[in-house]
């Protein structure tokens, strides 16, 4: 399948948006997963609910809320503008923000499951060997949570690659800036008889995420090289 220059640029933009969304969200999502897995505090269920919001609300509503918050009249938008001179409106960074928000609940859940599965006695063992809290976290907890982190990366990237409603509502459908694969597909779907084009673009999406899957499987194999999952 030969790609036109325009298709190439759409794919490149989707990769940029999806990659940025996932990488920026990763530490935030991990921190949230950690807090939800390990800490007990009043308002915990509320925080949990907040994290799930982008999953529950129709994407268009999320986009609309982003517009209200990050638009030029919104509080977050004004703050970004006056402190950093940055605006997300109609920019690929805005598309990445939308994708990040939509991917967040999936990433948090995957990592939380892994964190809850960590045998905490191993962290204790690390401490008696002289590791401070942070070192034990880096060398024991984090590697043991790796399956969840990788699952989060795959889920988050796939979700980002497929994100449509929040993006178009928030930053519209600007070629070269916010027009990612799903937005291009949507445009094509609106035109009678453009089914061939839709199929082509959809196959591109599929190829991208298959690539991400294969990459993640390879990472799993590399990091666990030969390590049997459990004894025997």
């Amino acid at each position, binding site marked *: 399948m030969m790609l036109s220059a325009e298709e190439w640029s759409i794919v490149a933009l989707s990769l940029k948006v999806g990659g940025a969304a996932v990488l920026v969200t990763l530490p935030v999502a991990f921190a949230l997963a950690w807090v939800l897995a390990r800490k007990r505090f009043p308002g915990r269920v509320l925080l949990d609910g907040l994290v799930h919001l982008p999953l529950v609300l129709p994407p*268009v509503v999320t986009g*609309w809320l982003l*517009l*209200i918050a990050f*638009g*030029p*009249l*919104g509080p977050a938008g004004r703050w970004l503008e006056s402190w950093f001179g940055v605006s997300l*409106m*109609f920019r690929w960074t805005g598309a990445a923000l939308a994708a990040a928000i939509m991917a967040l609940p999936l990433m948090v859940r995957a990592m939380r499951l892994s964190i809850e599965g960590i045998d905490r006695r191993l962290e204790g063992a690390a401490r008696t060997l002289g590791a401070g809290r942070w070192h034990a976290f880096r060398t024991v907890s984090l590697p043991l949570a790796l399956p969840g982190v990788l699952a989060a990366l795959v889920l988050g990237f796939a979700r980002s690659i497929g994100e449509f*409603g929040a993006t*178009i*509502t928030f930053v*519209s*459908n*600007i070629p070269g800036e916010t027009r990612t694969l799903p937005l291009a597909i*949507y*445009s*094509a*779907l*609106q*035109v*009678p*008889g453009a089914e061939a084009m839709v199929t082509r673009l959809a196959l591109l999406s599929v190829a991208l995420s298959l690539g991400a899957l294969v990459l993640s499987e390879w990472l799993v194999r590399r990091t666990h090289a030969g390590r049997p999952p459990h004894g025997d």
Partner: protein
Amino acid sequence: ADRGPVVLAAASLQESLTEAAGAWAAKGHPKPVLSFAASSALARQVIAGAPADLFLSADEEWMDAVAKAGLLRRGTRTTLLGNRLVLIAPAASAVRLTPARGFPLARALGSGRLALADPDAVPAGKYAKAALMHLGVWRGVAARVAPAENVRAAMALVERGAAPLGIVYATDAKASRAVRVVGTFPAASHPPIRYPVAVLKASRHKDAAGFRAFLLSKQARAIFARHGFSTP
């Protein structure tokens, strides 16, 4: 209670058609079942064999697609409504501008963007592009449009101050308090905006033709007119 005919209607008809259907039901008929979505989605459902009775499209193109598939009942297709295009700005904006040949749209935009429904895909956007081309200003703003998912989303961009100007249907602008109509496009500057209606071949409901006739009646026209539509 008896179910009325199933009516698939363009989302922009939501308010007016709901009211008209209410008036019809008040005459003792079973209440029609109204399903609002993008014309493209509805047309695809009809083509896929969905058991519906009436189709109200936001443009001729999708009605043509259904006709080509041989799914319209002969002699029932007719134009139900017309609409106008208007230029809008946030309610607080002081901009003065009249859409006419060579009007200074690009200058009025400044560094901002022009919010439209997607000009390559969504009917309202296609009409807007045609009008701007006809008036000779498309080239100056083509790189500065913000193509939205539909008319309402385009209007939201203006309402939220993300775009200083936008082009939407007169019916939409009329219903929003957050935007101000800056000017109306000359009717001759774009192909006539028409909402066709037709009874579907698959229709089995005895009221299908009756409800279609009612929509074309004086009483129904008055309702549509109140919402800003023109009635040919």
